[in-house]
Each structure stands twice: as structure tokens, then as C-alpha cells.
């Protein structure tokens, strides 16, 4: 293994070094200075994110188990940016709640390990690497979910998460073994050639899909979502709904468009039903939620349904609009989660009614919330509109007009519950509104980045054009 092959894995290597450095920091930094660990972690991760943007080669390692190209590189960079914003937003929470309890380093290590797992999952060239990545990305999150060990709900959520995750990955693994039986290989490239539309491979695919469907929380694999989000600390819920889901969508995209391509007739029909089911269930359950975290859980289920519109199309346009949508979704959802977290950090309030009259005391945060929710609801000029529009175009250009119609009906329903949050903040009045508070520099930076992202990604077309040009690598 030469030095240049290390460069190909630089995302993974750097992150591993980062984790090791943090362990060293945990050992050598004296107890009363532990809060500097937060600065260190964010600083190092910032460097890691920046380095990731350096150009990369197209290369495979370990006999094809690990591969990388510009597209995979882009996926990792998107995830990095998301995690960076997430870290900025949760810096206060970590400093206040975790450092004192001596759990700060663990948080970072678990979070970064999960991210490392996602890297491997995305870069996988065979199902073995994929499965290792999948497990590595899921297990640490279960620990993170239970991080509020003092709270029963958090521990309960952790157990729920690990049990459902284990079941999902077990089913997925069974599916993979059936696919192996059908094709005689676990290498994606070989499988793509030898895959035929036999009932065995379709059964294998369906079982395999269940595992990823769990991570993306597609209906009917979504049941864990709301409970886990509610129990988990907000940064972890945010990580689950943004980063974890994004990574799973990326790998699903790769697999569906390459390995599973021969089964396209089967999975288009299946996804059609799942898309409608996911959008509708997510929306209908979101309508009545009053807890912000549960609310966002269902909202993110509904959003996942839209992603399927691009998958169903099965075209390059579909692929690029999915990547674009996920990028936008990361920024929009982080904006919303950021505001929820800012409020929760200062006041501990997470109920929607507590937000009544919030605009009059904290106009800036309310406006960020407005922008984030508009982006999720797909209202211009926020980027979410462009993301959704391109997804519709991708589906409609393959003739799925009815599906697009059902999707836009769902968008209108979703607008209702997004407006309910805005109604609380802007329209309703409150005798005791949440008083004005000032956010830390990290939080402000984290929110500012999301705002810039939401405004720029839609209006500035070269971003989409770059994604579009790179998505040709899928074929």
C-alpha cells in the first residue's frame, strides 16, 4: 500500500486521526480545562471539512471493496458540511451538559465513528464493506440517542433504536445473502452484470431495501422515528434526521442505479407505493404533533417520501435532483433544528405552544425558522422550492404525473403544519413569551451558514449544474 493510496482514503484517515487526537486530548487535558476539547474538536473538524474539498482521484482499493470518485467525494463533503454545522450548533449544549458530566469526548468519538461508518458505506464497492459501514454508522448513534442517561425517555429511545436497527440490519443482511445466491458475487460491479430479474433476486432486493428504508425512515419502516427523536438529545435527533438519512439516501442512490438497475421494473412499482405511503403517513401524523421533536420527526419522514420521486425516475436527472435535494434538505432541516436547539438550550422548552409570541422577543431566530420551514415546505425563494421542483420534473419526465400530483397535494398538506409553527411564532401572542436571549458565537455561525445555504443553493445555479455533471458518474 503506497502513500498515494492513503490520499485516496484521506477522508477516512483524517477522521480516524481526529478521533485518536480527541482520545489523546481526553487523557492529557486536565479536568478543569476540558471545555477546550469542544473548541479543539470543532477546529479540527473544520480543517477536515476544508481538506475534503481538495480534488480527488477516481480509484479503487482492496481489490474493489473500496472505491472513490468525484461523486462519492461530493457525498462525503456534503455530509462533512452538515456535521460541521451541527457541531457549531451543538457546541453550547456539549459545553454545558456533557463536559461537566465528563462525556464530551465520548460524544465526539461516537459521532465521528458513525460518520466514519457512513464514509465506508458510501465508498463501498462490495456488500461486505457496505455492511460494515452500515453497522458502524448505526451502533454509535444508538449510544448517542441514550446520551441523556438521566432521562428515562432517552434510555428508552436508545433501546428502541438499537433493537429496531438490529432487526433492520438483520433483514438487510438476509437480503444481501439472497442477492449473493442469485448473482454469485458480492462485488457491485460483478453483480450489476449478472443480476437478472428473477424472483430470488427481487426477494433479496426487497429484504435488503428494508434495512436502508429503516435508516431513511420510509413507511412502513418509520415507526421508530418519532419516539427516538423525542427521546434523543436534540443534536442527536438532528444528526439522525439530517446526516444519517442523507448518507443512507446516497448509498441507496448508488445501489439502485447500478447494482439494482436490472430490477428497475420491479422497484419502480414498489417505490411508487412506498413514496405515496411515506409522504402521506408522515404528513398526516405531523399534523397533530405539538412537541417540536416529534413534529420534526414526522416532517422528516414526509420529506423522505419526496426523495423517492427522483429514485423512481431512474434517470440521471433523477439522480442529480436527489443529490441536490438532500443538500438543500440538510441546510433547511439544520436551520430548523438549530433554532429549536437554541431555544431548548436557553429555556428547556420544546413544546409548540411555548413558541407563542416568539417573534416579538427574538425576531432573528424566528426569521431563520421561517426561512428553514419555507425551504422545507418548498416555497421560493428558499432553496427547497428548487429541490422539490427538480424532483417533480424528474418524475414527470418519466410520465409519473399522477405521482407528482399526489406529491404536490402532500406539499400543500405539509404547508399547513409548517405554518402552524409560524403561526405560533409570528401571529399568536403570549403573556409570558420566551424572553430575548443572545446566542453564542458558535450557534450564530451555525445558523448563519444554514441561512446562506438556503438562499444561495437555490438562486445560484452552478451548484446544481456541478451536481448534474457529476451524477453522470453513476452510469
Amino acid at each position: 500500500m503506497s502513500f498515494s493510496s492513503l490520499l485516496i482514503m484521506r477522508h477516512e484517515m483524517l477522521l480516524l486521526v481526529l478521533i485518536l487526537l480527541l482520545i489523546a486530548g481526553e487523557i492529557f487535558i486536565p479536568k478543569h480545562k476540558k471545555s477546550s476539547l469542544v473548541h479543539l474538536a470543532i477546529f479540527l473538524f473544520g480543517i477536515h471539512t476544508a481538506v475534503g474539498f481538495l480534488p480527488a482521484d477516481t480509484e479503487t482499493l482492496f481489490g474493489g471493496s473500496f472505491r472513490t470518485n468525484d461523486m462519492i467525494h461530493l457525498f462525503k463533503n456534503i455530509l462533512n458540511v452538515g456535521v460541521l454545522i451541527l457541531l457549531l450548533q451543538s457546541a453550547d449544549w456539549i459545553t454545558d451538559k456533557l463536559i461537566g458530566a465528563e462525556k464530551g469526548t465520548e460524544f465526539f468519538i461516537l459521532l465521528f465513528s458513525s460518520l466514519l461508518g457512513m464514509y465506508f458505506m458510501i465508498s463501498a464497492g462490495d456488500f461486505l464493506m457496505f455492511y460494515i459501514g452500515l453497522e458502524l454508522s448505526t451502533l454509535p448513534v444508538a449510544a448517542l440517542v441514550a446520551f441523556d442517561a438521566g432521562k428515562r425517555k432517552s434510555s428508552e429511545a436508545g433501546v428502541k433504536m438499537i433493537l429496531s436497527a438490529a432487526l433492520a440490519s438483520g433483514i438487510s443482511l438476509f437480503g444481501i445473502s439472497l442477492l449473493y445466491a442469485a448473482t454469485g458475487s458480492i462485488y457491485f460491479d460483478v453483480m450489476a452484470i449478472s443480476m437478472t430479474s428473477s424472483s430470488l433476486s427481487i426477494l433479496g432486493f426487497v429484504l435488503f431495501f428494508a434495512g436502508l428504508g429503516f435508516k431513511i425512515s420510509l413507511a412502513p419502516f418509520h415507526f421508530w422515528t418519532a419516539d427516538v427523536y423525542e427521546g434523543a438529545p436534540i443534536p442527536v435527533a438532528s444528526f439522525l434526521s439530517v446526516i444519517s438519512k442523507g448518507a443512507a439516501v446516497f448509498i441507496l442512490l448508488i445501489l439502485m442505479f447500478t447494482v439494482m438497475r436490472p430490477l428497475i421494473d420491479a422497484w419502480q412499482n414498489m417505490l411508487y407505493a412506498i413514496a405515496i405511503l411515506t409522504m402521506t403517513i408522515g404528513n398526516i401524523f405531523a399534523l397533530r404533533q405539538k412537541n417540536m421533536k416529534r413534529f420534526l420527526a414526522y416532517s422528516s419522514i414526509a420529506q423522505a417520501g419526496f426523495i423517492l420521486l427522483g429514485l423512481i425516475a431512474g434517470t440521471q436527472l433523477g439522480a442529480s435532483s436527489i443529490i441536490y435535494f438532500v443538500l438543500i434538505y440538510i441546510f433547511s432541516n439544520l436551520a430548523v433544528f438549530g433554532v429549536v436547539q437554541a431555544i431548548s438550550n436557553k429555556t428547556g422548552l420544546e413544546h409548540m405552544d411555548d413558541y407563542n409570541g416568539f417573534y416579538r422577543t427574538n425576531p432573528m431566530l424566528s426569521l431563520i425558522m421561517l426561512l428553514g420551514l419555507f425551504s422545507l415546505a418548498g416555497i421560493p425563494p428558499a432553496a427547497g422550492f428548487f429541490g422539490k421542483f427538480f424532483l417533480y420534473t424528474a418524475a414527470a419526465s418519466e410520465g409519473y404525473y399522477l405521482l407528482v400530483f399526489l406529491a404536490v397535494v402532500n406539499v400543500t398538506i405539509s404547508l399547513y403544519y409548517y405554518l402552524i409553527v409560524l403561526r405560533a411564532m409570528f401571529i399568536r401572542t403570549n403573556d409570558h413569551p420566551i424572553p430575548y436571549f443572545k446566542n453564542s458565537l458558535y450557534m450564530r455561525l451555525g445558523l448563519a451558514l444554514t441561512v446562506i445555504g438556503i438562499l444561495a443553493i437555490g438562486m445560484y445555479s452552478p451548484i446544481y449544474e456541478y451536481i448534474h455533471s457529476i451524477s453522470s458518474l453513476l452510469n
Partner: protein
Amino acid sequence: MDILSLFVVVPVITILALFLAKGLKQSRIVAMAGSLVQLAMAFHLVYAYVKERAINDDIMVFMRDVVWYEDFNIHYAIGVDGISVALITLTAIVVLAGVFISWMMEDLPKEFFVSLIVLATGVYGFFISIDLFTMFVFYEIAVIPMYLLIGIWGTGPKEHAAMKLTLMLMGASAVLLVGILGIYLNSNADGGPLTFNILEIAQVNIPFAAQQLFFPLTFIGFAVLGALFPFHTWSPDGHASAPTAVSMLHAGVLMKLGGYGVFRVAMFLLPEGAMDWSWFFIILSATGVIYGALGAVRQTDLKYINAYSSVSHLGMVLFALLMLNKTAWTGAILQSLSHGFMTALFFALIGMIYGRTKTRDIYKLGGLLKVIPFISVVYVIAGMASLGLPGFSGFTAEMNIFVGAFQHTDMFHRVATIVSISAIVVTAVYILRVIGLMLMGPVKSEFKDLPKVRWYEVTGILLLLIPITALGVAPLWISDLIMESIKPFIQGVIQ
């Protein structure tokens, strides 16, 4: 910077300036300055347009085209013809009048004016766009501020009204989106590239099956904003709860987007679909015309009366558009303009009356003519214009519409036309009833001394009153401006 893009840039600058402003006094000055500049620009645009039209025969003038999303062939493409110029001028006038009417907006003034101008930006952008995508973006930008405008500054069951209005309009725009996608994905029917550009799509023969499928989607998508029966229910509730300036802008300008879109997109791009479906929508719009008028008779709240009257008048716009001939279309555009000024004026006056008497119930009011003569006299004038008295804008418009409608000689059109015409009689009933109950009669004791009319109110009123009279007295100049631009559109339909 070209002359048209300024209509988007100036409002945006105004919005940014508003963010720096503090308190009511600064906010309203900034908003007024911005709207004044827009009005000046609108007048300049009319002048420049007339000059350009003399030497330029294109369908659209002052065109500009910048590629936005290359892969989808989405452009920022703009251009205007006589119709858009007229509607832009309408918008500029109503926005300025709205700012004057909101001169005393005490609660969150900055946010109010920001939302108002965001709405105006969307409307301007919509009228100058000739690219379906850009047009749709501006359409949504124009609609969404209504939620906050009604929700925060409204009265009565404002939360409910705001939610209902927003969801119905956004639901309609969702339907519209499918229609637009359908048009876009069929724009390569003649072998060319996919395009969103309206003028390019108009050259393409979209297959009949596609036209048949997407015309109703596009039509309904736009027409809900034009209060098409039975999708008009958002309008009375929304108007009744909205603050004065918002009702003005919404009924005066925003609802015109519906008719304009039907004309510019649905009918221009899908002419065969329009022919095929016209009977169905004629029934709906004629029902709307008569239903709105009868509804107005039954109401006792001034704002509801006016809102139902808008349903009736705008039903007439849709009805005229569905007649698919030049005279009726000229009438439709004139009616849009006339209704825009008139209804804005009505809502302004209602706002003033409500601000003084604290009631909008016509049975509780009475004898206002003696107490607040200026407002009352203008109310009578607006009423006369509304029922189509010769000498005011409404007459020319309705005359054109019904002359155009009678050009169809078959039974179906005749019946529909007669039903619609009968609404004029009903209009007279509800207008005169309001005038009789509210303005005439003895002065009620609680209204003995109402505050005098203020300068900013007079300015707002005059801004709207002058065009109404001008349109009525000299209609030919404006109808020439419009007729010229209707030609290329009607040719597409006749072929």
C-alpha cells in the same frame, strides 16, 4: 440594468432599506419613497412602451434573457406587452395607495411594510416574466406573504382566514405546477428542446391529448386566485379578516394574477385545450358571476359585500376570457384594470369607515353622508363605477365583454351570457342598498362626531379615484394599448 428588471430590484432595495428603518415614522417614509419610485417607473414604462411600440412589432418588447438553470433550460426571461404594462401601472398605483392607507400602522410597522412590498415584488415579477418557471416563482412569492399579513395584522377570525386563504391558494398553485410541468415536458413536441419560454412554447403544436389533460390543471391553478366558483371561498373570509391595505392589494392586484395567468399561459399555450374545455368553465364562471352578486345581496358586513362583489366581477373576467374573441378579451383586461382600482378604493373606504365607526355592519351604520361627506361621496362614485354606469371604467369593460359574448350565436353561449348580464341588475341592488342604508337617512347619535378625513387618506383615495374616471372618460387610449397586444394571442386561438 434594463427598464423591467428595475421593477424587481427597486422593491428589493426598498425591503433592505426597511430592515434598517426604525419605528413607524421611518418605515412608512421608506415604504412611501420606494412605492413612489415604482410609480414613477411605471409611468415611465408606459411612455417608453408607447414609443417602443411605434417602431417594434414583436409580441413582447424590452425583452431580456439570462440563462439560469441550463440543464432545464430555465431562463430569467422578461418582456412586456400592453397588457402587462397596464397591469404594472395598476400595481404601482395600488401599492402606493396602500402605503398611504396604512400610514398609521402601529403594530410592527416595519414588518408590515416589508410583507406588503414582498407581495408587490412578486406581482411585478409575475407580470414581467415570460418564462414559466420564473413566473411561477414570482407567483408564489406574491401569495405567501398574505399569510402573515392577514394573520398578524388582521381582525376577527384571522388565524382561520389566513390559513384557509394560504392553503387554498397554495393548493391551487400546486395544481398549477403540474400543469406547467406538463406544458414544459410537451414543449419539445415539434422536435425542439424542452423550454419554459412562453413565446417559444406558443410556436409548438402541443399534442391535443396533452392539451386536454393540462388545460384544466393550468386553468384551475390560476383561476382559483381569480376566485373561480366553487373555489372562491377563501376570498370572502380572507378579505374580511385582512387589514385594509392588504384587502386593497389582494383584491386590487393579486387576484388579477389569476386572470392574467389564464390568458397568458393556459389559453395562449393550450388553445385547443381551451376550446375543448371552454363550455365547462363557462358554466362555472357564469355561475360565479351570478352567485357572487346574489351573495353580496345577502351579506351585511361591508367587507363581505365587497368580497362577494369581487367574486362576481372577477367571474366576469374569466367568463370574458372563455369567450375566446378579441372584443371580449379587451373587455376582460379592461375589467381587470377597472375592478382593480375600484375594489381597492372600496376597501380603502371601508377601512376608513370601520376605523371611525368600529363597525362594518350596514344595519348599524346610517347617515354617514352628513358626518363624513368626502368618504361618503367617493363611496357613491365607486359604487356607480362598480355597477357599470357610463362615464366610469366599469361601463367600458362590461360593454366590451357582453358585445364580445354576443358574437357567439349558439344557444349555450346566449344563455350563459344572459345569466351573466343579469348580474348587473343584482349589482345595482346591493350597491344601492348599501348606499341607502349606510350613507342616507338620519345621523345616528353614536356617529355624531367622527374624525375628519386626513391628508394621507385623501391622497390614497385620489390615487385610485383619478384612474377610475380617466378609464371611463377616455377608454379608447387604454383599449388601443391593450387591443394591439391581444392580436397575437387571439390569432393562436382562432387557428
